[in-house]
């Protein structure tokens, strides 16, 4: 078995009576693409917020690369190599694409900043748009910029929260190639509603429902799992 890069045990996060995350265990192998799926409101975003440090868990522990990071503030976790892209696009709308990317790139203190930024832009196909103000980009380009900023941190674990939302069909192909190219140097935790993307990319899948882990395993196992089909796959496919 591969070495584990992240281990979460017994994570809980309640909002009043609502149990958004209710005792979740999650283990990520170094270098894998791990998908996190579940119906709307299952607690996926809340769970990765706990992992990235944007929220503090009510209970549970998180270990990253062998060290306990449960109490570490978010920016410290980013420094240790946990990159995060927001589900709701959070770019610097008032700044240029260049500045947006530079803010991520300059964390690595490169000698040649503009060269490194151009490189980071090229990875997500935005090199022609560097001088443009980010807020004036199309929605799809803003999503790409969001991902580009996450990538530019060169994280060891990259958390992508519904990255393909708002992509055109053609853009999804490019995105999948991009994510495949990240492993095994980077571990990827991918939240995704598009099942085709999940099945094509993920080496392992964790299914979340009502704040709890419903199932976890290889894609084939998840596809065959009755409980998952009832709770999620069947329902959502029927609805599509």
């Amino acid at each position, binding site marked *: 078995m591969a070495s584990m890069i992240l281990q979460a045990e017994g994570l809980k996060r309640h909002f009043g009576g609502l149990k958004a995350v209710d005792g979740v265990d999650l283990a990520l192998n170094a270098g894998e693409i791990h998908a996190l799926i579940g119906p709307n409101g299952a607690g996926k975003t809340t769970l990765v917020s706990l992992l990235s440090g*944007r929220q503090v868990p009510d209970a549970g522990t998180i270990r990253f690369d062998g060290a306990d990071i449960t109490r570490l503030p978010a*920016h410290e976790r*980013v420094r240790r190599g946990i990159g995060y892209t*927001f589900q709701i696009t959070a770019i*610097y709308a008032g700044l240029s694409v260049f*500045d947006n990317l530079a*803010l991520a790139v300059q964390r690595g203190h490169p000698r040649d900043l503009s060269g490194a930024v151009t490189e980071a832009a090229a990875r997500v196909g935005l090199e022609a748009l560097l001088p443009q103000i980010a807020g004036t980009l199309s929605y799809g380009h803003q999503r790409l910029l969001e991902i580009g*900023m996450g990538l530019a941190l060169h994280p060891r674990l990259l958390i992508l929260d519904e990255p393909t939302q708002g992509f055109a069909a053609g853009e999804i192909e490019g995105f999948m190639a991009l994510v495949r190219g990240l492993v095994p140097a980077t571990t990827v935790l991918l939240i995704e509603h598009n099942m085709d993307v999940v099945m094509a990319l993920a080496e392992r899948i964790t299914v979340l429902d009502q704040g709890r882990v419903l199932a976890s395993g290889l894609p084939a196992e998840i596809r065959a799992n009755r409980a998952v089909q009832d709770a999620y796959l069947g329902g959502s496919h029927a609805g599509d």
Partner: protein
Amino acid sequence: MRALSLHLAVLALLLGLHFVLPAYHHANLARIMVLAVFAMGYNIAFGYTGLLSLGHALLLSAGMFGAGLLIQHFGLTAAPALLIGTLAGAAMAAVTGLLALRTTGVSLMIVTLMFAQAGYLTLLYFGAVTGGDEGFPVPAAGRVAFGLNLAAEGPRYLVALGLFAVALMGNLALVRSRFGRVMVAMRENEERSRMLGYNPFAVKLGLMALSGLYAGAAGAFYGVMFGYVGATFATIPYSILPLLYVLLGGAGVTLGPLLGAVLMFYLIDLASSHTTVQLAVTGGALLVLVLFAPKGILGSLRERGLASWLP
């Protein structure tokens, strides 16, 4: 390149004015340049970092009294007093920032306002030492640095220009540095900045201290160069003043504070030489700016495509 040449041209213009201005405007401009340094410090906090403070009078008076009290009670000469006063501004900003920066937005405004008010009352409370409401004149010996009388007209203008030049070029360098980009990032989206690995509290605290360094320098130089130190400089109007200058000239533009200070100074000067409506002018200017020109003069120009000239 364009920005650098514009800034140097402004400094050259100010130097040229030294030789041609009549005495009255010569003295005014020296005053304006020091006040513009104060407003530049405010601009670093408010315009670039997005920290809306209503308590910068505290930092100004920390510099002024830091220098003034040392001269008055310990017989220091101008040079060390100015240095210590400047640092006192930064230290005061750091200490109050440690508490105030735990809040944001409206709470930050009120907390800074309250700290400044407490500072003003403290100056009154220790009236025996600080001179209270009346303040005190800076002793003649304390106005001399390196054999130069800073309060005499010629040197005063040049010293004010020197201070302004250092402050302006420092501001320009900051804005164009990598750290300058982080500063603006805090204003634009703090949460995003945190998720890029920046510690918002530490960044904001550092910038608040830098802002205090500017304000402290302005206070110390103002006291020494104009020979007077008083608690009025710690009152609320002196916290509003830099806000007004920055809003008028353009928040988040390096040259905004200077332009705002020049225009507002002469607007009030003009109004008060004919009538007694300074209050209404100040209030009206605030309203007009916040309603119709929230970006200020240079901010609006920058939007019209002059961005490469006006960082």
